[in-house]
């Protein structure tokens, strides 16, 4: 039952580009107390290193309590921290948040810049280097920062360069987004500091409300953009396995909990354009967007001026899904589930013969009962579209035999009978539906969780992502 109720609420992120040029209600960065900003960055750096991956510990709770505006500023300062790690003598800094066309120039006072350089020494694990010694960095660290520096230095020694803070930072931000789940805030004006995102919460196919989201995912993505795999001389996250695992696991988590974020997978594909798992999840994301829950919410939502949805109507979303499934099949033709969902989308696009072909491939390749159920159900729909009514009926019957309590095959059989003019048959086919026990709401029909089941391996993916870091912590 919990699983079903949880799936009633859908949250998805929206493109927060400043499309109306309206003045920001957020004060300029220079107006924000620099001391407090750097204190937060310092706390964040400690949290990055000392947080236990996968746990809701004090560090995750602390950073998770920051407002969306504070996290927006963190995105800027963490970005600049990485820039200083890589270019310690730099004095001028620019940032450009995802989804925004403008670059923001960032300046620090001399005192702030010194502190940033000290923190960069810590983050890069190079407190003992000549440049950091000249800064007297080691004398300005408390116990926690010394621990952070030691952990970062250990990562350096293990051959991972200065990636420590990038990887751990992305893990922390993901854990905050997934486990702490900071609540949405009232929407501020567009054009604020750092990336801006709002979410639409839906229930029963209706948009319930919108809110400003703290951009923890954006901080995580930004950090991983700077990862340099072993022996690389420049940022190259596309050749880093941990970055790949991070995107696979987090994108799967978003789909399993129906907290969709288009930009997350858009960015993942920029880094991993031919990764079959990321292409598969991109396709399923748009397949979900084409579904009734999201489409209904889209129609009922009143968008705040200056923002725009990054979800379109059903057919364009299906076409996007079709394109990604095609690429996923080309990248890896083995998984039956890719063929299965590709077939469903083709059927919804009325390409019934192509759909039947893909579904037949899927059915030939899987013995999994639930996957076979979906395959037979979708094959029934494709054969109905081809007007092969006997084949459609047979497919629906096989689906029904796989899950006798499921109502969808019986409703499909009823509709097929009614389509053929058989009123009595239509009523007869509904009898098993009517006879089903209504006190078994989470039982019967796998169709009810079709739009999340593609991410059923999310726990394994997250475990695989966190395991090396948990071992490192121990």
């Amino acid at each position, binding site marked *: 039952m919990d699983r079903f109720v949880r799936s009633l609420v859908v949250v998805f992120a929206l493109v927060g580009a400043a499309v109306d040029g309206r003045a920001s209600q957020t004060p300029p960065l220079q107006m924000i107390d620099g001391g407090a900003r750097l204190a937060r960055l310092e706390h964040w750096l400690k949290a990055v290193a000392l947080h236990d991956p996968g746990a809701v510990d004090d560090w995750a709770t602390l950073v998770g309590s920051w407002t969306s505006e504070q996290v927006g500023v963190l995105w800027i300062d963490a970005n600049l921290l990485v820039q200083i790690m890589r270019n310690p003598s730099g004095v001028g800094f620019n940032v450009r948040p995802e989804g925004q066309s403008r670059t923001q120039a960032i300046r620090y006072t001399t005192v702030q810049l010194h502190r940033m350089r000290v923190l960069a020494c810590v983050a890069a694990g190079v407190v003992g280097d000549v440049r950091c010694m000249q800064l007297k960095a080691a004398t300005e660290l408390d116990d926690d920062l010394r621990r952070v520096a030691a952990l970062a230095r250990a990562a350096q020694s293990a051959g991972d360069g200065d990636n420590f803070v990038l990887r751990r930072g992305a893990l922390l931000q993901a854990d905050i987004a997934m486990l702490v789940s900071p609540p949405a805030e009232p929407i501020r004006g567009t054009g604020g500091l750092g990336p801006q995102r709002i979410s639409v919460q839906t229930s029963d196919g209706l948009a319930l409300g919108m809110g400003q989201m703290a951009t923890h995912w954006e901080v995580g993505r930004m950090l991983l953009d700077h990862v340099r795999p072993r022996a690389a001389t420049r940022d190259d996250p596309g050749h880093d396995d941990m970055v790949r695992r991070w995107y696979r696991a987090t994108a799967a988590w978003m789909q399993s909990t129906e907290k969709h974020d288009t930009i997350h997978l858009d960015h993942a594909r920029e880094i991993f354009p031919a990764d079959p798992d990321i292409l598969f999840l991109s396709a399923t994301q748009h397949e979900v967007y084409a579904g009734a829950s999201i489409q*209904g919410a889209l129609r009922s939502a009143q968008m705040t001026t200056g923002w725009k949805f990054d979800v379109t109507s059903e057919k364009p979303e299906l076409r996007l899904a079709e394109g990604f499934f095609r690429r996923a099949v080309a990248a890896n033709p083995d998984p039956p589930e890719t063929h299965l969902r590709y077939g469903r989308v083709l059927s919804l696009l009325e390409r019934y013969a192509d759909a039947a072909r893909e579904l037949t491939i899927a059915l030939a390749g899987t013995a999994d009962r639930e996957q076979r159920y979906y395959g037979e159900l979708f094959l029934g729909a494709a054969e109905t579209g081809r007007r092969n009514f006997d084949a459609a009926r047979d497919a629906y019957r096989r689906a029904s035999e796989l899950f006798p309590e499921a*109502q969808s095959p019986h409703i499909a059989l009823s509709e097929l009978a009614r389509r053929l003019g058989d009123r009595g048959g239509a009523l007869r086919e509904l009898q098993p539906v009517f006879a089903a026990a209504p006190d078994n709401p989470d039982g019967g029909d796998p169709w009810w969780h079709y739009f999340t089941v593609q991410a059923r391996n999310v726990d394994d993916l997250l475990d695989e992502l966190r395991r090396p870091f948990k071992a490192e912590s121990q």
Partner: protein
Amino acid sequence: MKPLLAIALVFSCVAPARSQAPTFSTRIEAVRVDALVTDHGKPVLGLTAADFEVVDNGVPQTVDLVSYDQIPLNVVLALDMSESVAGDRLDHLRTGGAALLAALKKEDQAALITFSHIVTLAARLSTDVAGVKRALDAAVGIGSTALTDGAYAGLVVGESDVGRALLIVFSDGLDTVSWLTPEMVFETAKRSDVVVYGVSVGKGKPDFLRELTSLTGGRLFEVDKTANLSAIFLEALQEFRQRYLLSYTPRGVAKDGWHRLEVRVKRRGTVKARPGYLAGS
């Protein structure tokens, strides 16, 4: 069976046998159309067959039968029992349903379908109105909304017995989990004689119910709150009782496909009826 079985809609006849020719049976289906005639918003009563003109795909037809308020009703309630229907809303729904059931005549039949993500026939079509009310009292909101599947089930149950079928669909949300697409249910509605009245509560845009009620010649009530559900249900029932049932056997038109209908009265008045029907597969 119902007293007016004489208007049974399907006629069977056997083609005369010819030498060496195969024999087969064919069926000529009478078409029936529920029509509401109003003049300045008020129902026009007392009309006869001679007052109506029915045009099927551009071909005028001879109306065989007109009846009014004589044929027992099959009233099917298809009610959204998803999680959002709770508290006052559920109380209002029960009160509204009870008011409608109390207004039925003793020969009328009623049925109750509830839908969350599960579609349930809570009470079969019968004259046991008290049983339907008991089922309504026992229903609780849980889960999400299979509005499309629920409406489809309502159509099938509505046409499962002779009599004039009124399907009242209530929902406070939009579909999230149905197997059937809206287009599939529209196709079924085009093949059905059931008239659908819809009640949509809340800020959602009830595109599905709007189209479904339009295709069946019914009506959609869009309301912000459920406090007046009793009045709405009774208004739907009253309006349905004031409709004429026209019946004709199509002549001069192709059997299969979409038949566009025009129903007019020869005197002053506005006619509301389904815009057509679908025959064949």
